């Protein structure tokens, strides 16, 4: 099973400029999480802090019980072997062919024979649909292919944690859908903890078990997908609907006067889009253990959720599960006993 990442009170600033402060969240082991946020809110910075490329000024990041912020350099390199990271542009090594790129982690960290390396690399290349492009250089292929090759390289050591920085940017909607499916399938197969940083609403609505959002230098909220998808926060509504009116402005946030004017014109906040069902693993793959674990967790803390989220959680449970958790479906919509 994947590894839990517990972030506590994290704060990062570049000189006088604060990127975000006091971010606390726990990525449950083996589950898929998405972090949303408008452009320029420091999502990528957050990701880089998680892998120890940037050093946050405050707080701690516990990975498998080890604090990444305070630990020794050698420990950090060991911890990083747990990670598979997909960078925005793939970050392939420009002087190596795709094959060598994907084989790089194996050659550095394992003593496998070349035949075994070839087998693993071809398997991962096939997984991301790049069979036949092994001998190309990163400069000779499209951005989408680079991204997929970057994913293959991230997966080659069977990581416990997969971090994706905007896996959808530069990809067409169809390929984005394939990639989303691939991540879910991966989760079903190797039960890795996955964090996706994106501003693609579609990915956010269909892929994750947990959703979070960064805005105004703070984590607005983070929790099971039902919470954010039913949230009454104006920011969330604006973001999920992709609207102009709301707290998010073109450059930064809006001032009070503009907000008042907008409220007069458009009324109070937009309706949230309906919650769509989560992606299922492809047929033939095992059931995702994460789903069961998450439901266990959710049902236990059900009473702490807002009514809308509660209702949503309940409607996602089958009769069988309701019985297992000892819940009854009340006649009133959303009522629980």
């Amino acid at each position, binding site marked *: 099973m994947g590894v839990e990442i517990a972030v506590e009170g994290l704060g990062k600033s570049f000189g006088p400029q604060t990127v975000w402060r006091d971010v606390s969240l726990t990525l449950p082991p083996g589950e898929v999480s998405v972090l949303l946020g408008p452009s320029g809110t420091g999502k990528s910075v957050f990701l*880089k802090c998680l*892998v120890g*490329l940037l050093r946050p000024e405050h707080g701690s990041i516990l990975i498998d019980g080890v604090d990444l912020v305070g630990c020794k350099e050698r420990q950090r*390199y*060991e911890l*990083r*072997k747990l*990670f598979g*990271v997909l*960078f*925005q*542009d793939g*970050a*392939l*090594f*420009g002087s190596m062919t795709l094959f060598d790129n994907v084989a*790089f*982690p194996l050659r*550095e*960290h394992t003593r496998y024979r070349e035949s075994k390396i070839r087998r693993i690399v071809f398997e991962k290349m096939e997984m991301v649909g790049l069979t036949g492009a092994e001998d190309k250089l990163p400069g000779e292929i499209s951005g989408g292919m680079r991204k997929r090759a*970057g994913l293959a*390289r991230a997966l080659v050591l069977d990581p416990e944690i997969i971090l994706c920085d905007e896996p959808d940017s530069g990809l067409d909607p169809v390929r984005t859908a394939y990639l989303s499916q691939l991540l879910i399938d991966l989760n079903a197969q190797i039960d890795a903890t996955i964090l996706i940083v994106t501003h693609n609403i579609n990915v956010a609505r269909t892929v994750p078990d947990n959703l979070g959002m960064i805005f105004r230098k703070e984590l607005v909220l983070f929790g099971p997908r039902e919470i954010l998808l039913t949230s009454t926060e104006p920011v969330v509504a604006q973001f999920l609907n992709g609207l102009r009116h709301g707290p998010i402005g073109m450059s930064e946030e809006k001032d009070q006067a503009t907000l008042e004017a907008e409220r007069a014109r458009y009324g109070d906040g937009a309706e949230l889009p309906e919650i769509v069902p989560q992606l299922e693993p492809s047929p033939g793959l095992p059931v995702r253990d994460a789903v069961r674990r998450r439901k266990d967790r959710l049902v236990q803390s059900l009473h702490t959720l807002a009514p809308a989220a509660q209702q949503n959680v309940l409607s996602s449970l089958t009769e069988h599960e309701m019985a297992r958790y000892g819940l009854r479906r009340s006649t009133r919509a959303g009522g629980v006993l």
Partner: protein
Amino acid sequence: MNLSPVPAMRQVGSLFALGLEVFRLMWRRPFQFRELVQQFWFVASVSILPSALVSIPFGAVIGLQLGSLTTQIGAESFNGAASVLAVIQQASPIVTTLIIAGAGGSAICADLGSRTIREEIDAMEVLGVSAVQRLVVPRVLAAMLVAVLLNGMVSVVGVAGGYFFNVIMQGGTPGAYLASFSALAQLPDLWVSELKALMFGFLAGVVAAYRGLHPRGGPKGVGDSVNQSVVITFLLLFFVNGVVTAVYLQLVPAKGM
């Protein structure tokens, strides 16, 4: 304009930190032998010809200058002695490193810089591979090795250039020129010359790598970094050369005549 010394000191500190890190990781396995050979070949191939071409006029100028001076005081027979000393102890390590910093170091800096802005270095770090150990150490070692070896060649070519201009152009005596070789120069001069080359090679490599790993924003930043790395290396070079020469002259007394 910000004139606070803190950012400048921070840069110096990080440069030193990288130097120490390189030295520390030099001895740690796995050793990147393949990368070292590639980089060695690259640095050597871009610096052999230019340094040979530069060292000929260098030796020649020293030879010509000395030639006209020594004739005035009637010490023609010491032409060779002075020219060998100047070439081996001073000119050769400096020429070698100027070329290595200018030709090899700039290429190393540009290479690492473009890798940094393309996030390749980040990606490597995330894959659990130390970029300093994997990329910087072989490059610095290559620069050091090439500097030491090239230093020998530059000395020979420089002395030969001096010989040619002194004997052929100024009509000096070949026998006297050769015979006076060891009148002033001694073996420690050669050692200190090689030691200087080794140190300068290390400096050139570390400065190039440091600027390459910290470019300021975008492709333009990489260009600036390359420029800075060459300039910084040159400045450091002459400073360190002054220190080493002063210390050397104190430790090893000049040969009496």
